[in-house]
């Protein structure tokens, strides 16, 4: 069985009363909004550092440009845990939305019929696994051939 769908928290959601479901959704919505805003601001700050480094380099101010690049790297590193948390919350938020749809069924029957059906990030359960997957899959630097 796929990890997210075997979680007791997820399984029990469908059995909750509408009031409790709404409360849970509300909590997740708030967490999602907060994490998204933090992630946006970290990414935006990192982008600013990169742009500043570019301007400084074009003016020949190499040392200052290096400083900005170091700040960029710091922001990049600090944004990873936020990205992990954001992805995890976004997955849960969207899964709860799908589970609230009338007629929702867990994909148990399908996975019994075929074991290789791909449920993407729902196959990843632990935080460290999600981190490894995102480091590998949401990393554009390697794709662009940029070594940091």
């Amino acid at each position: 069985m796929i990890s997210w769908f075997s979680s007791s928290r997820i399984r029990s959601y469908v059995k909750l009363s509408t009031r409790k479901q709404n409360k849970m959704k509300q909590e997740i919505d708030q967490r999602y909004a907060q994490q998204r805003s933090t992630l946006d601001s970290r990414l935006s700050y990192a982008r600013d550092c990169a742009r500043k480094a570019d301007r400084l380099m074009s003016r020949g101010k190499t040392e200052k440009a290096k400083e900005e690049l170091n700040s960029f790297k710091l922001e990049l590193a600090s944004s990873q845990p936020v990205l992990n948390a954001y992805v995890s919350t976004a997955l849960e938020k969207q899964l709860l939305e799908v589970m609230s749809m009338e007629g929702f069924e867990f994909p148990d029957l399908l996975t019994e019929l075929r074991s290789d059906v791909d449920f993407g990030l729902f196959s990843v359960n632990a935080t460290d696994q999600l981190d490894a997957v995102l480091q590998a899959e949401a990393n554009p630097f390697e794709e662009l051939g940029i070594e940091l």
Partner: protein
Amino acid sequence: MSRPIYERLAKTPKRKLDKLEYQHQQHLTRFSNAKEGKLNETQELDRRLDKLRTKATKELESSVPRSLGTAMEMRHVKADLLIAKSVLAVLRSNQFYHRMMVMLIQDVKAGVEYDPDRIENLVPMEFSELVEGSVLSSNLGDLLGDLGSEAGTGDGGDPT
């Protein structure tokens, strides 16, 4: 697998079968529409990612730092794309389930003999795109496999 469902349906009165077919048809429409919406979102994210990729590659020719800024944006879009594709898989599995139920009910009503091969053949047709062209079929499949064996764990646990 689906034989117990088929056998249960075979014992159900016709009026109840009609009602059940109608309900599954409604659910099928609902999940098909939701899947279409998610597909559009995925395509939009793909387009955004392509644009950013082109921009970053162009910037890379003149300035690495400028390209880094765009790459940060790509990172966010890539993560959103992974989320959308994962949710798409869940919507597609529900669409499949209700489609299969409609088909089984219609078969029972028409007195068609149960054929397990027919059901199993339906799955690859529905999911071939998902298996071949999405997240786990890329290098993520190997990565998850490695992580699984490293952790020595199977299923279970709270994902959050």
